[in-house]
């Protein structure tokens, strides 16, 4: 199972907690997903700056899985750093999913602010999980800034488009063989999640695909099954594709007419 900052988690599925029809359905989805990590937004769900979000945090803590607070909705390094500090205080964890949004339409990471915030948070003792693009040089700079895990997007947040740039993700896997890699965002279907695992990714982080499905609990289960299938397939060393048919039963020595 994936190891992040020296801690092994129970499952390659990292599941978000936002946007479910009810807390009861959220809990059911987590139970069926077997997710090892729950991500939680400190900014809106908890009424950031308002107080009054304690009920929801208590509810998420009650899921019984490790929490990964995030800085969703932050647009500057400063904002993200402040949110991370608040998360550490409220939830007692130094893990932080670092999200700094640049282009609002795509919720694309602002990679410059991301590297800046990652450096400062690492220096403050945070264990940073950066939501990034699949750009190799950006990832290299995040590692230099102190990150020990990378979380490239599959596609824009909430889009459900799947792995928009599979070659870039494969290149990242090949380029950083020893770094835990997580596909974060863009997953719509279990097959997308399975594809990421088949590429050798360590985990997948998703939220909308489950929370906004007609039956979130069943979709959570489907995602868990897909992740297990993809992970097993990667470990089983898949065959190389080739252009010609290869009979699975040898024909040499058999009586046949050409």
């Amino acid at each position, binding site marked *: 199972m994936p190891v992040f900052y020296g801690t092994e988690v129970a499952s390659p599925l990292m599941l978000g907690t936002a*946007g479910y*029809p*009810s*807390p*009861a*359905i959220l*809990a059911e989805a987590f139970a069926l997903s077997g997710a090892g990590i729950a991500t939680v937004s400190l900014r*809106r*769900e*908890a*009424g950031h700056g*308002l*107080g*009054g*979000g*304690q*009920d*929801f945090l208590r*509810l998420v803590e009650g899921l019984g899985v490790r929490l990964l607070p995030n800085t969703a909705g932050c647009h500057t390094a400063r904002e993200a750093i402040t949110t991370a500090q608040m998360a550490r205080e409220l939830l007692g964890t130094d893990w932080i999913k670092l999200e700094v949004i640049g282009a609002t339409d795509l919720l694309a990471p602002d990679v410059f602010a991301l590297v800046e915030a990652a450096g400062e948070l690492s220096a403050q003792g945070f264990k940073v999980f950066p939501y990034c693009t699949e750009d190799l040089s950006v990832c290299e700079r995040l590692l230099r800034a102190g990150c020990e895990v990378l979380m490239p997007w599959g596609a824009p947040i*909430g889009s459900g488009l799947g792995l928009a740039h599979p070659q870039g993700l494969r290149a990242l896997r090949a380029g950083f063989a020893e770094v835990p890699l997580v596909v974060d965002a863009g997953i719509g279907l279990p097959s997308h999640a399975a594809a990421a695992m088949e590429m050798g990714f360590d985990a997948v982080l998703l939220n*909308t695909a489950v929370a*906004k499905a*007609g039956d979130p609990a069943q979709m959570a289960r489907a995602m868990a099954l897909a992740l297990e299938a993809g992970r097993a397939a990667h470990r089983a060393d898949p065959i190389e594709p080739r252009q010609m048919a290869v009979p699975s039963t040898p024909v040499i020595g058999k009586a046949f007419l050409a």
Partner: protein
Amino acid sequence: MSDFTIYGAGVMGLCVATELMARGASVRLIDPAQSGGAACSWWAGGMLAPFCEFESAEEPVLRHGQAAMDWWQQHTAVTRAGTLVLALGRDRGELARFARRTHGAVAVNGPDIAALEPDLAGRFDQALFFGAEAHLNPRPALAALRAGLQAKGAQFGGDAQGQMIDCRGLAARDVLPDLRGVRGEMLVLRQPEIALARPVRLLHPRVPIYLVPRGDGVFMLGATMIESDRRGVVTARSVLELLSAAYALHPAFGEAEILETGADARPAFPDNLPRIGRVGDRLYANGLYRHGYLLAPAVAQQLADHITNGSRPEFWHETDDQR
């Protein structure tokens, strides 16, 4: 001497009192608040939209919501003009999903929309119409219930007597620890240049935004859904999001007067469905979530039936030590 004392005079308490008095009981209501604004039902949209709500609500909301329209019509003005559901620009794909997950949606086109809502003519070319839905104006509805109770001799204030019934909403967290707050923010706008005959919903990936006509060019614009029990003032961001949606619906809303802003926290249990039960020596009805006007009549009827003939309410909730 009253048979029952009801704590809380929001939509839940008033409906319970109405149903008990209809069964011949005498009732006293106690609410520390002097004005209606202390109850979250004061800030509600007043949509009686069980079919649209079924998108994310459980089945009882659909079932009881339909009967709620008839119940309210006996007490206050109910407008049965349906609901128009629209999607802006890039969210257009949401219409198909919404139709799939609701009941009774009829796909309508540009000319249909123009016929239903002339002021929206030419602005949208597809929408969903839910013809069997209705809406009411919450504040007059609450006042009508209150007046009806007073006319029948209900007491307001004074000392508790008889069986106590707790309808305090989120304030009942001291005895109902599963209760949580879900914050909602709303605005009241006036734009006499626009007339809408029915509530208009805008599909949005995060927040379902709606405009409910209140007559005389007044509209209620709501509502955010935030997991927080913070009440009181609205945030700039929420107002920005709500007003942006109204402006996108029709630019004339950019010139609207903002008559009011409001925020409160809806009482909700973990499954977002109401509960009827007993704690200590009191009965309670709570957890209407965002379905106060849709579910309060059914919850009140179930509680009143339970009291008068011992029947087990559908929404009955037993705690572990009561099983």
